[in-house]
């Protein structure tokens, strides 16, 4: 579990990596995000989750492949579609999940894939809290800490950040991962499955940029209540 490592970002090519970006009405930023990811990764798939602002067209114009939901399903549903595409493309070895609002850095994703490849891991999770710079507000930080405490207790995984959208999944793990939560509960669901399948995983510190845009677009802190309730109802 040595998250802190010094793998060079460009040690290998990334043509066996599929970067999945779930996006719902992200027109203001999607082009910029796609372009920043394309610098590191040749294959970028934007899942347009029923947007009404032309997100898919903008993503395609920026050089991404697109999968378009006819209806809005939620981020979990969009990731499920991305995993389905990955399963159908035989060349995909690694799946990266990447938020569309510009809060992640492609360089972090590249470093995480290198670590996954080097150590033959099933899952690499980005974390905001073990090291990396964080400029989250106090309430957001406290809510995330509480969610983390709950997840540690319910899954037994010693994670430090439960709801980070930046992850690397091996093809094998992605193929076994069936997301039933269509909303934001998928983050906990992925951790549940890591625990259930005794998957090999590490956390890697990543930088998160809380821009005004990403905070406005991101989950309200109150979503923690919704997620917990939905999980208990399952």
């Amino acid at each position, binding site marked *: 579990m040595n998250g802190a490592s010094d793998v060079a970002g460009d040690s290998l090519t990334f043509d066996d990596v599929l970067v999945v970006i779930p996006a719902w009405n992200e027109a203001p930023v999607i082009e910029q995000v796609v372009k920043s990811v394309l610098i590191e990764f040749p294959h970028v*798939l934007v*899942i347009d989750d029923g947007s009404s602002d032309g997100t898919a067209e903008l993503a395609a114009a920026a050089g991404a*492949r*697109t*999968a*378009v*939901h*006819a*209806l809005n*399903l939620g981020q979990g*549903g969009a990731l*499920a*579609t*991305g995993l*389905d*595409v990955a399963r*159908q*493309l035989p060349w995909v070895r690694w799946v990266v999940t990447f938020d569309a609002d510009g809060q992640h850095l492609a360089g972090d994703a590249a470093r995480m894939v290198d670590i996954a490849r080097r150590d033959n891991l099933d899952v690499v999770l980005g974390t905001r809290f073990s090291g990396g710079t964080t400029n989250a507000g106090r309430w957001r930080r406290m809510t995330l800490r509480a969610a983390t405490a709950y997840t540690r207790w319910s899954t037994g995984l010693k994670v430090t950040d439960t709801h980070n959208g930046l992850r690397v999944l091996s093809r094998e793990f992605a193929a076994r991962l069936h997301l*039933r939560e*269509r909303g934001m509960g998928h983050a906990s669901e992925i951790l549940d499955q890591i625990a259930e399948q005794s998957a090999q995983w590490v956390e890697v510190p990543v930088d998160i940029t809380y821009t005004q845009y990403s905070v406005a677009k991101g989950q309200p802190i109150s979503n923690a209540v919704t997620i917990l309730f939905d999980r208990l109802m399952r």
Partner: protein
Amino acid sequence: MASLILIILVLVGVFVLWRLSGSAHGGAARRLAFLAFFGVVVLTIAFPETTTVVANRMGIGRGADLILYLTAFGLMFLAAVSYLRSRSIEDRLAHLVSKQAADDAVARWDTRA
């Protein structure tokens, strides 16, 4: 005593509905249940005092109270059934939307690659 019986009623009903949801025999059982329900309704209309007799035997004072309780349970069952049904429809719809988007993306991948 009365509340105990009522709680058991709820539990049995929920259990039965749970088992029936999605099973092939659901149709037949539901029809039989409806027949029984209508039988009881007809009986209580024909002999209104029977509700009070039954209620007294169950430890409930008035027949009207018994009917009120049964109505409340009926509503709860209805809510549970429609919740399960709408969730199942949502799941199927989501699967359809996701599958269509993924297959379409894969098809375009092959042609453009």
